[in-house]
């Protein structure tokens, strides 16, 4: 279970404090529920995911993680370009305290990512699809209770998307997923519940269809 208590977030800009991106968000994300995050560009979806994953801190309020939460995967974050995929993977194993069974984990990552010999090439030589394959494989190699995915499935090719979909399906019952996507089909495929972000506020829907409907209504109005 993840609890967001009175979360406020704004970023520092060159002209002082920016506008509030998120205002007074209170949410309880229950265990074993796949949640889709919906909202227009700039609504704060990525910001919220980063806060949940701990990659960023709220300006006010706190995030309580009563379970193992992955880092937010997406957009090449967390990979050092000058190091190879393997070296990046080793680093992540080590900071998660898994250096003693690094061998099997690296094998799992290499098998899942299917980037062949590029696994030993610097990450800066990867295409965006290869990067998201690697990121996806990296986070799946660890047993988290909640995986956070920021559009990570959208950059891959059809084969990868099918593989990702299967991996997500296999997680059901064991772990859950918090994800964003601009594709309603993807969201419907994976998520049961939805969060609609609108004007800095978060609205919880027990059914993803209701969340999508609310979002559709807001952009057509």
């Amino acid at each position, binding site marked *: 279970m993840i609890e967001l208590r009175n979360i406020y977030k704004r970023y520092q800009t060159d002209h002082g404090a920016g506008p509030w991106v998120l205002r007074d968000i209170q949410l309880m994300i229950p265990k074993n529920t796949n949640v889709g995050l919906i909202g227009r560009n700039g609504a704060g979806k990525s910001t919220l995911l980063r806060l949940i994953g701990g990659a*960023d801190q709220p300006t006010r309020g706190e995030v309580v993680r009563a379970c193992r939460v992955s880092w937010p995967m997406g957009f090449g*974050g967390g990979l050092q370009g000058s190091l190879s995929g393997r*070296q990046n993977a080793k680093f992540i194993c*080590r900071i998660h305290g898994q250096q003693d069974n690094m061998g099997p984990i690296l094998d799992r990552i290499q098998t899942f990512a299917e980037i062949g010999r590029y696994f030993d090439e610097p990450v800066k030589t990867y295409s965006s699809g290869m990067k998201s394959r690697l990121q996806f494989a990296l986070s799946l190699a660890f047993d988290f209770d909640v995986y956070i995915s920021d559009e990570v499935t959208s950059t891959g090719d059809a084969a990868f998307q099918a593989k990702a979909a299967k991996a997500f399906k296999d997680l059901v019952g064991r772990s859950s997923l918090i994800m964003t996507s601009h594709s309603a089909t993807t969201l419907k495929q994976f998520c049961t519940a939805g969060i609609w972000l609108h004007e800095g506020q978060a609205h919880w829907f027990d059914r993803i269809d209701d969340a999508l409907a609310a979002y559709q209504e807001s952009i057509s109005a």
Partner: protein
Amino acid sequence: MSRSAWRITWSVWHALLLREAVARMFSRRGAIIWLLMEPVSQIGFMVAMFGLIRATHVGGMDTALWLTSGMLAFFLFRRVATQGAAAIGANLALYTYRQVRPVDTVLVRSWLEGLVMLLTAVIVFAGEALLGVHLQLEDPLLVLNAILGLWLLGLGWGLAASVASELIPEAKEILNLAMMPLMVISGAVFPLAAIPHGWREWVMFNPIAHGVEAVRAGISPYYHHAPEMSMGFLYACTLVLIFLGLALQARFRSRLISL
């Protein structure tokens, strides 16, 4: 996977150290050679210059030894300080993992640079021994004390400067510009004892000068160091700088991870 805060920090330091070491030594062709070449060429150049003006002794100490010890002492500070100052900016991608804090990258880099400088010093002195310049330690404890003080001073500088150079764009340039004059007024290539009384007190407000002079005083029993030299002053400055640096790191942590 429930780990104590200390265990998490420890594994982050371990992971960062290995990663930084790989990046530092194998990032480009012959990186290890270049790591050595920078101090060696600068020291070699200065020794040649002093030889040209036929200065065989400075303050009662062999010139080559005087230059080598002073410059290496200063380089220890400079390396740790500048590499530490760049640590936060160089590792922005890693703050995606909530286990990694900006301060960790500075601490790990300072440790690594200290080790690299220690290795460099061993190689340089070994090379000089082959050329007939023999290093003998008159007071090994004073040398160790001074080295530790200079390392800690570099760490404090790195902790404070890394925050400043991320939050204030101009700070990075200004702090880097300061390094060149610092080398001169720290007495690395210039005998501080030769500055007339009345001016020297001002120069000795610079804590690096105390460390550089103490290293030489610990090496040679006959060396006339600047009379104001004080380990207490060096460590007091170190303490203030490290405290300031840690306070800045704590205060601006959330700004730094969302850069």
